[in-house]
């Protein structure tokens, strides 16, 4: 259930009987059984027609398109299955109430720091000494309730993330020099991996939000964006350490990704096709990992946690019941 398919080659994607077929430029045919799919991710140059779009609409499958520099370019979403005027009204009211917006912004940052901390704690117990970073993350977290504006809250998030990223140079092998976050375009291998991973998390959150009647453009921590699904940015921050960053550590430290998986262009460093395939495969395996959910009383996949997070936010907005952000509990 809820499989994602990634297409890296250039070519054509089409409906073929009751399934989807990819014909690559070198003539290879691949079939994607979409009946249980959540989304198709297109990374290459792909042609498609309206028959393909209608079919995916009928199957309820989204298409996420990635363009130059692995940038998220947009989505073709199934016709809305979920609409609720009441949900949108409640969502906008919460945004428009400064105290309520601040409370939600702080919740997102609180959860994000907790989840960054979980990764640092793991490595702290494995031969690294990250006491300073852990102390800084703890301090950042406890400073949150003193913040009086969303901007200040955003500042706490930025400081915490900087401290968190400072551990990457130690965790990753010497030949992968990070030196801090750079994007637009990423300037080295680590930055290119972070950008790619984050864009996959973001696209998955877009799909998860679509399963509720929440409006993806009305956000609380990030400013509501004209061109971005900014609510997806709010929620994606919570999950980047769990979904995107752990894959980086694992693949690089085990030597499954090497400098051969990147190509340098002018002032930028990007994953090549083999590198993207390797990362996406490991990322999808991570989404499929499951965990016993104490409140739901069943095992759920990491991917389903994204859906649950959208439910939680919607429930909070609609009922006033407290929103507690996702915090890794295992």
């Amino acid at each position, binding site marked *: 259930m809820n499989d994602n398919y990634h297409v890296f080659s250039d070519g054509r994607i089409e409906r073929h009987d009751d399934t989807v077929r990819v014909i690559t430029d070198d003539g290879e045919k691949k079939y994607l059984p979409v009946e249980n799919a959540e989304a198709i991710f297109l990374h290459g140059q792909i042609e498609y027609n309206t028959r393909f779009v209608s079919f995916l609409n009928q199957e309820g499958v989204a298409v996420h398109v990635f363009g130059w520099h692995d940038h998220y370019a947009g989505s073709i979403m199934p016709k809305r*299955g*979920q*609409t*609720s*005027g*009441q*949900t949108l009204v409640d969502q906008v009211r919460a945004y428009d109430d400064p105290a309520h917006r601040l409370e939600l912004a702080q919740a997102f940052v609180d959860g994000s720091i907790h989840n960054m901390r979980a990764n640092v704690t793991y490595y702290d117990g494995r031969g690294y000494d990250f006491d300073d970073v852990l102390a800084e993350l703890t301090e950042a977290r406890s400073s949150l309730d003193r913040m009086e504006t969303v901007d200040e809250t955003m500042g706490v998030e930025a400081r915490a993330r900087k401290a968190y990223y400072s551990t990457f140079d130690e965790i990753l092998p010497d030949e992968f020099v990070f030196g801090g976050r750079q994007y637009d375009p990423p300037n080295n291998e680590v930055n290119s991996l972070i950008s790619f991973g984050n864009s996959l998390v973001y696209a998955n959150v877009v799909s998860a939000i679509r*399963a509720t*009647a929440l409006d993806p453009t009305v956000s609380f921590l990030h400013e509501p964006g004209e061109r971005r699904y900014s609510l997806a940015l709010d929620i994606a921050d919570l999950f980047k350490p769990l979904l995107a960053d752990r894959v980086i550590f694992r693949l690089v430290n085990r030597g499954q990704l090497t400098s051969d998986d990147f190509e340098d262009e002018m002032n930028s460093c990007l994953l090549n096709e083999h590198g993207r395939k390797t990362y996406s495969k490991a990322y999808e395996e991570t989404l499929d990992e499951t965990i016993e959910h104490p*409140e*739901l*009383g069943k095992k759920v996949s990491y991917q389903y946690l994204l*859906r*649950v*997070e959208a*439910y*939680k936010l*919607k*429930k909070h907005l*609609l*009922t*006033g*019941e407290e929103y*507690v952000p996702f915090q890794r509990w295992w």
Partner: protein
Amino acid sequence: MTESSTDPVDRFLAAARDETEELPFRLTGVMFQYYVVCERELWFLSRDVEIDRDTPAIVRGSDVDDSAYADKRRDVRVDGIIAIDVLDSGAILEVKPSSSMTEPARLQLLFYLWYLDRVTGVEKTGVLAHPTEKRRETVELTPETSAEVESAIRGIRDVVSADSPPPAAEKPVCDSCAYHDFCWSC
């Protein structure tokens, strides 16, 4: 305050009898079922909170409802409020996929009988049928069952007019409910 000083049942009936009057609150047959099964679900329904409609229990319920007694029933809509199935015999039919839903379905059927009697002045008998178990049961409007309907109307109005739903409470039906993950995603 002035609004609640009038009994919701009287207000509902007065509006239902007068075509020019707007109903004071929305009341549908399925709300009576939800009222018995789960007041929290009733609140979600009243706010049009839609969750995954592909849940197996819901698909199954619709299938049984559509196929049972297909040749002997007629769909009748009254005042845009109730949608009932009338059998050849003139009785009002309510079909349920399983006997675990008997009590909720009985209350819904009683509401239809009550509405027909009080608003349109037509006396009818009801038939509650479980086609999968080949069982049917007669349901009639009496002073006692009328009081049951009226008490449910007051209760439903209280639930749907609240700003927030009753808190989630674990019940046997939770496992098959479409809102399960919504309620328990803490």
